[in-house]
């Protein structure tokens, strides 16, 4: 089974991300990048499937040069190969531009299953997987909390408002995984060493047959006009519990007639 994982490389979660007021984009320069923890779950799920059923796991990443470290961690976890869509012409793409680039790259080789995180942990739009499935002409199975492949059929438990649905489709298909689906493995030392020898294939927009009308800032139809801070809440009161914290809360609630 040929499994493709679309992964995003994001600023490490410990840093507070800033937005550049000029370009209105996230400042990624000089900020450490890592494999998105959400995407790591998709990588993990792909590795488990490949271990059970055989096959390859190819990670596809769109991002600048600094994405390499994150790509290496996916390879260190055990992915067989990586594709890196790296080109200044791709910078500033909106969700649909990103999907077009990923689809063009994925189409270049045979695939059975495409795995994505439900959404990235930096921008959270969650649009790319649905667009990608449509562009690839394969059914999207989304919000998977569990995933099995039996023969040519993929079945997931799909998160729903009130519980879950069991949903299936024939391969090839695309599946998005939720954060609770697994606990990603840590790369072993052997994995980290091995990752250095694995191939990272690079494509530019032109390699993929994509022009300025499709991708990059020029292809984007979603435009950020202004960037600001939300109105702050009026400051509250913080007290240290001196043995009567619970009573103080009760008094506070009573004062607001909430009890």
């Amino acid at each position, binding site marked *: 089974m040929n499994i493709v994982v679309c992964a995003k490389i994001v600023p490490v979660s410990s840093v507070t991300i800033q937005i550049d007021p000029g370009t209105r984009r996230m400042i990624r320069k000089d900020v450490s990048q890592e494999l998105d923890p959400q995407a790591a779950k998709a990588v993990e799920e792909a590795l488990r499937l490949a271990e059970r059923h055989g096959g390859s796991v190819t990670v596809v990443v769109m991002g600048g040069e600094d994405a390499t470290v994150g790509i290496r961690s996916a390879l260190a976890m055990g992915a067989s190969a990586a594709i890196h869509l790296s080109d200044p012409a791709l910078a500033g793409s909106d969700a649909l531009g990103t999907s077009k680039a990923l689809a063009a790259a994925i189409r270049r080789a045979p695939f059975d299953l495409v795995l994505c995180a439900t959404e990235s942990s930096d921008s959270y739009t969650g649009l790319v997987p649905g667009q*990608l499935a449509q562009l690839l002409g394969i059914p999207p199975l989304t919000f998977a909390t569990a995933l099995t492949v039996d023969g040519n059929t993929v079945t997931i438990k799909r998160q729903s408002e009130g519980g879950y649905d069991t949903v299936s489709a024939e391969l090839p298909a695309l599946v998005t995984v939720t954060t609770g689906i697994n606990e990603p493995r840590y790369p072993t030392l052997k994995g980290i060493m091995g990752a250095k020898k694995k191939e990272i294939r690079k494509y530019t927009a032109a390699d993929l047959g994509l022009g300025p009308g499709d991708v990059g800032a020029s292809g984007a139809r979603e435009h950020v*006009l202004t960037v600001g801070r939300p109105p702050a809440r009026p400051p509250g009161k913080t007290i240290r519990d001196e043995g009567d914290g619970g009573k103080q809360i*009760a008094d506070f609630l009573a004062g607001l007639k909430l009890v």
Partner: protein
Amino acid sequence: MADLIWVYAEIVDGKISRATLELLGKAAELGTAEAVLLGPGPDDAVTTLSRHGASKVYRSDDPVYRDHLTLPAVETIATLIAAHHPTVMLFASSYGGRDVAAALSARLDCDVGDLAVKDGAIVATIPALGGSYQNTTTLTGPGPKLVLVRPKAFEIKPGAASATVEDVPAPRDTALRRIRVLERVTTEREGPQLEDSRVIVSGGRGLKGPERFAMLQELAQLLGGAVGATRAAVDAAWVPYALQIGQTGKTVKPDLYVACGISGAIQHLAGMKGSKTIVAINTDADAPIFQVADLGVVGDVFKVIPQLIEELKKRKRA
């Protein structure tokens, strides 16, 4: 001529979803509101949509939409859009809404954004980076603008309109039935639902395990509210996903939010900082939750909460 604003009407647990009604109110304010309702729904579905602002409902109760999820809906809506050219189509940022909007945007090569429409123009104010920024965004280019709206962004506005209904044919193409729903499981949910609750008592990593949620349940009961949780608590499988509040969970705006052992990651704050009054208890004085709390108590939740519970019981008896 008023702009034609369409709303993708969703049926959740056998009812028109609350988010659908929120969108209709906004759509009616912006222009002529029309709804697209696909799949078997309650008998009074059209009346409900009409009373909340829809002047027309495109309707098919074919089970194909329920049993095969996204693809048949995408096909039908794409056909309807080509025939009627709405200016904007609004989708709730729900499981179903997001899937349909994303697929449509790729199919129609048109715009989609995780946005909220504001003041007549397709300029939206959206929280970015988990709510630490607030951006305004616009959509350009040809074709309809597809807009995904987070729940609770708009108020429900009941009206008295009477909608016309246009029946639409369901697609018969078997390729659109590639996704099959085999089973639907509803997990038991006790007590008031999070979204509708006026009081929410919520727990995070600081509770250290699933057992302590019983304590929150007791407090919630005393306050007449429901229990919620952070993603950390849900990912650790202490409580079910249905309780998750935050960017990837539910958005809530209760009168009172009691955050217990919650540090206040922006992912969580995004889902609850619209609460009217916030009370937080956490051992770490530097926890970001204290920046949004009206009353913060730096202390041990295992001491403070039981005392609060005792105190509330005492006052109830008095």
